[in-house]
C-alpha cells in the first residue's frame, strides 16, 4: 500500500469513485497578510494491494509550519468493499479529498504536509507561503502559484 499521488490544489472531490482535481500542483500560496486561510485541498490517491483490501487502513496528514509547529492534523480511516469491476487479485486506487481550506496559515515560509499510511511515512508535500509578487515583476510559468 502506498500513496500513488498527492497534489495540493484549489479544490478536490471524490465522485463515482474517481478523484476530481481543480487547479492541482500548487506549490506557492501568496498572501498579503497573515494569518490567513490556506484555501487549498489535498487530493490523494492511495494504491491498495488486493491482500490489504479487506482490513481498515489509517491515513494521516499533518501540516507543519516553517518553525516546525503543527498547524493541522487530519486523521481518517478507509475500508474498501468488494467491487464488481475489478479482477481477482487486483488492487484498487482509493481516492481521498481532504478539504483544508479553513486551515489557518500563521507564517511565511516553507510548509509541508507529513503523510503516513498505517504508521508508515510517505513522501512530504511541500509548498511555500509568500508575499504576492510585485506589480510588473515577471511571474514565469508553471510554478504552481495560488494567487489569493
Amino acid at each position, binding site marked *: 500500500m502506498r500513496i500513488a499521488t498527492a497534489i495540493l490544489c484549489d479544490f478536490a472531490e471524490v465522485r463515482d469513485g474517481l478523484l476530481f482535481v481543480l487547479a492541482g500542483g500548487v506549490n506557492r500560496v501568496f498572501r498579503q497578510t497573515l494569518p490567513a486561510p490556506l484555501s487549498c485541498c489535498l487530493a490523494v490517491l492511495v494504491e491498495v494491494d488486493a491482500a490489504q483490501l479487506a482490513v*481498515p487502513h489509517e491515513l494521516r496528514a499533518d501540516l507543519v509550519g516553517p518553525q516546525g509547529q503543527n498547524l493541522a492534523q487530519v*486523521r481518517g*480511516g478507509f475500508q*474498501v468493499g468488494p467491487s464488481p469491476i475489478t479482477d481477482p487479485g487486483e488492487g484498487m486506487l482509493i481516492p481521498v479529498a481532504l*478539504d483544508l481550506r479553513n*486551515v489557518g496559515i500563521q507564517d511565511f515560509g516553507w510548509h509541508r504536509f507529513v503523510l503516513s499510511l498505517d504508521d508508515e511515512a510517505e513522501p512530504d508535500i511541500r509548498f511555500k507561503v509568500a508575499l504576492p509578487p510585485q506589480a510588473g515583476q515577471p511571474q514565469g510559468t508553471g510554478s504552481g502559484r495560488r494567487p489569493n
Partner: protein
Amino acid sequence: MTATFTIHFEMAETDVAWWAETADVERLSVAAPTLMGLRRLIDEAVTSHLGRDTEVVLILSSDGEDTGTAAERTPDAVPPPRGADLTNAFLTTLAAA
C-alpha cells in the same frame, strides 16, 4: 471461529482515538491512538481469549463525521472504468491553529 470487530473513530479536543467493540468476546474493550495500534491490540486480545486459530474480521464504522469523501453512486451512474469503491471514510481536521 470468527471474531468480528466494529471499529470506531472518536475525536477529542486535541487528539483522536480508535476503539473497537465485538459481541464475540465478553467484556473486551480495546482502544488505541492509531489504527495500527488498535489492530495489534485486537490480535493480542483475540489470541488471548479465543486462541490463535480465530479469524479476525474488522469492519470500519461509518459513524464518523462525513466530509464528503465517500463515493456517491446514483442509479444512473455508469461504473467507472478505473477507480475504487470507497465504502467507508471519515476524515476530520483537528486543531487548526
